[in-house]
């Protein structure tokens, strides 16, 4: 780990370059779509004439040439300012900061549940490969993999909220209950269960399948034979020798997917009315709220980069052959 500081410094430099490219690309892409906020606002205002639209554009700086707008935007982002949403009349950063904790809570829990559950189930399936428990896990994983995520969410709501009444169906917490402290936490956790499970199920299936395949591959390697020739117990062979080697590809994929968690939860947030980033993005698209959309893109990109760096660090911890320094 000696090379940690230069490693991080190097990655930061790269991250800045990558972020700059992303900001420019996003900006151009967003502006390539037809329509602009002025049109939408004018449309919503009812009887609007061309002059009113023009006035709005002037007010928001939308009448300037594209490259000038781009320069302005990049300049403000570089200063740490993500801009101002004229639609919502609030700074973009405030809007995102409002929603970010809810999304992170949802996606990180789902990520952990998926990873732990997936690896355990995959290991179980691989150990019992060919037996009924393997077939059961494989079939369930395939189903979870193939079923649309919103449908799973709806069915879970039907079962656990509507029929059984065990868990709340939507929202972040019970509105107007006025709970505080631990009660509030419990309330939020209860609201969290179904969306986390819905979102996690898909990824759990992915990790379970990967883990199983990877273990079956590693299981036949020479060093496993060596471990067995030492007279080790089967459990020690599996957890001490096979799993640790088998988990490397899972980490790689999980690292890539971890970065997508912010954007990947739009459907689940919609189904469960979860007040997260995903829905903010969705609304921003409909309203041509460029600034918010670009802000969300920016934050997601930062998350992807952070997760990539984290993955590389975790990788060096698990696999001594990989060295941190580039």
């Amino acid at each position, binding site marked *: 780990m000696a090379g940690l500081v230069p490693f991080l410094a*190097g990655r930061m430099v790269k991250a800045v370059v990558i972020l700059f490219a992303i900001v420019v690309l996003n900006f151009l892409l967003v502006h390539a779509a037809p329509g602009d906020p002025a049109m939408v606002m004018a449309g919503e205002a009812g009887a609007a004439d061309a002059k009113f639209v023009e006035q709005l554009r002037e007010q928001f700086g939308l009448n300037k040439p594209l490259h000038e707008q781009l320069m302005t935007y990049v300049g403000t982002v570089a200063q740490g300012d993500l801009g101002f949403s004229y639609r919502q009349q609030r700074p973009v950063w405030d809007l995102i900061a409002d929603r970010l904790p809810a999304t992170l809570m949802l996606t990180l829990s789902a990520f952990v549940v998926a990873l732990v559950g997936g690896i355990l189930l995959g290991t179980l399936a691989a150990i019992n490969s060919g037996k009924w428990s393997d077939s059961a896990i494989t079939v369930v994983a395939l189903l979870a993999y193939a079923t649309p995520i919103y449908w799973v969410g709806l069915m879970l709501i039907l079962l656990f909220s509507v029929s059984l009444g065990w868990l709340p169906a939507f929202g972040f917490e019970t509105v107007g209950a006025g709970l505080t402290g631990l009660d509030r936490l419990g309330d939020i956790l209860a609201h969290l269960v179904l969306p986390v499970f819905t979102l996690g199920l898909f990824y759990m299936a992915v990790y379970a399948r990967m883990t199983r395949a990877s273990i079956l591959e590693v299981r*036949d*390697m*020479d*060093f496993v*034979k*060596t*471990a*067995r*020739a*030492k*007279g*080790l*117990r089967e459990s020690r062979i599996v957890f*001490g*020798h096979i799993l*640790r*080697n088998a988990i490397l590809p899972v980490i790689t994929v999980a690292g890539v997917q971890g970065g997508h968690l912010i954007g990947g939860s739009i459907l689940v947030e919609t189904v469960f009315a979860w007040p997260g980033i995903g829905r903010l993005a969705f609304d921003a698209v409909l309203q041509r709220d460029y600034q918010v959309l670009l802000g969300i893109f920016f934050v997601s990109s930062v998350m992807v980069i952070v997760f990539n760096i984290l993955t590389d660090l975790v990788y060096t911890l*698990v*696999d*001594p*052959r990989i*060295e941190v*320094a*580039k």
Partner: protein
Amino acid sequence: MTGTVTPFPAPRRASAPQTEGSAMSPSSVATAVEPLLDVRGLTISLPDGADRPYAVENLTFTLNPNEILCVVGESGSGKSMTAHATMGLLPKPHVKVTGGELLFRGHNVFTMSETEQRALRGGRIAMVFQEPMTALNPLKKVGDQIEESLRVHTSLDKAARAARVVELLTQVGLPNPADLSKSYPFRLSGGQRQRVMIAMALACEPDVLIADEPTTALDVTTQKQILELIRSIQAERHMGVMFITHDFGVVAEIADRVAVMQHGKLVEIGPARQVLNAPTHPYTRHLIASVPHYIEHRADFTKSGDALLEARNVNKVFNVGGGFLRKGRQVVAGDDICLTIHPGETVGLVGESGSGKSTLGRSIVGLMTPNSGQILFKGQNLLGLKRREFRPFRRDIQMVFQDPYASLNPRHKVGDIISQGPVAFGEDKGKALTRARELLQLVGLDGSAADRYPHQFSGGQRQRISIARALAMDPTLLVADEPVSALDVSVQTQVLKLLDDIRHRLNLSMLFITHDLRVAAQVCDTIAVMRRGKIVEIGPSRSVFGDPQHEYTRTLLDAIPGKAWEIPAELLAERAGHSAGGHPS
């Protein structure tokens, strides 16, 4: 009978429990000492659909304390299966023991409970595997991997275990054992890893050590060290060692007794000097006759005319582990290499792994670009040619690769594999396929092989296909990179004969890259010895082998296993007889 065995050295230990001369059957030995392992009628069945019903059939032998029993046979003879069955390592559930018993000190291992078997495994019976590069867990420190064995089989506490690990690593001759125990396997060389494997096997002072081709993947000088290590440890601890090998040179070096296996059956067993010098079974005789022997070099080659290929001051340096800003370690694979190959000449490039042999071969074929120097083919410098300009030369210089299992595209039919080259150079598809069939016949296969896929052929047959593929381009120079290393010894002889035959028939020049000096002696006119990217000695086979000038050449020659053993003259005559026949694998 004893009259013919004079060159064989005296039995290497007087204490070895050999019953001289009369030890034809294992039982006569067994009466003298209680055997450590007593295998009676062992039968291991293969799953349905395998090429034969049994991997091992009705196998009976014993392993005594304080002896090295070499189990010899070609791939698929069931020797490894026997070892794996002893350790309970057969790939369950497809391959299983279906008959016989295996007694360890009088107790049948096969009827023991899993717990009892685990106690034996790594405790009383330990095993060393063939491939040191993959036999260690890449993610665990080597010390921890050795300690694991101690933790399972002994009641030593943590400190005592750590001390024992260091002691073991010292015993197997590793430098800085305390530091080394904290290293990960990837930091160690192949020889060092094999020493770690041996240390691991010895951790609990086993009675029986099973070594499954422990030196096959190692360089010849490393092999020598490991053989010496196993021998000295065996003598010190009076262990019974079951040493599995395919190499009769190694057998001659290390064995007290020899068991020869073929197709899962034991065909001959007896004291080493008897099996080596007066083999009775035809298969043993055939195997021994196939053993390449370095004394046997070819007549001097008279160079005539201009050199076909000349390498001038070729340099190649690899940067390993370097990056964007950081400078990596430099590995010199070519250091001022000069070499000439004349028409019809076979130049052997010998050396240990990492000496840069393959780098030179690949540079000549144009698969790699040296940093500096010239490679002149018929006077034209190949280096510095653009891709398009180099293209015509690809016809002239063809390569045969080492691994016949990996070098043929498994999704293509053999006929397509062979004809692809000519077709790429504008040959009519139909004509190319007809030519492919002719070439298959030339290399000793049936023309109908063209319609089959590579996986339907054995290793030797695949290497014949590889040769046919190279010949399809009508090359004048063939670069053969370890073409027989992956093959069994009897198949090896056939492929070498084929190469020799073709070379004469087509007047080919050849660069023959090999790590095996015995093979080089058989096929090469000129030998170049490489070490760390440098050619340290080059000259006619006769002088390099007969009167080596460089220290390193002498070390290499000295490390050839079983050099004190002369192949019985009658068998050499038998081989000469084989040569006339020339039968395909």
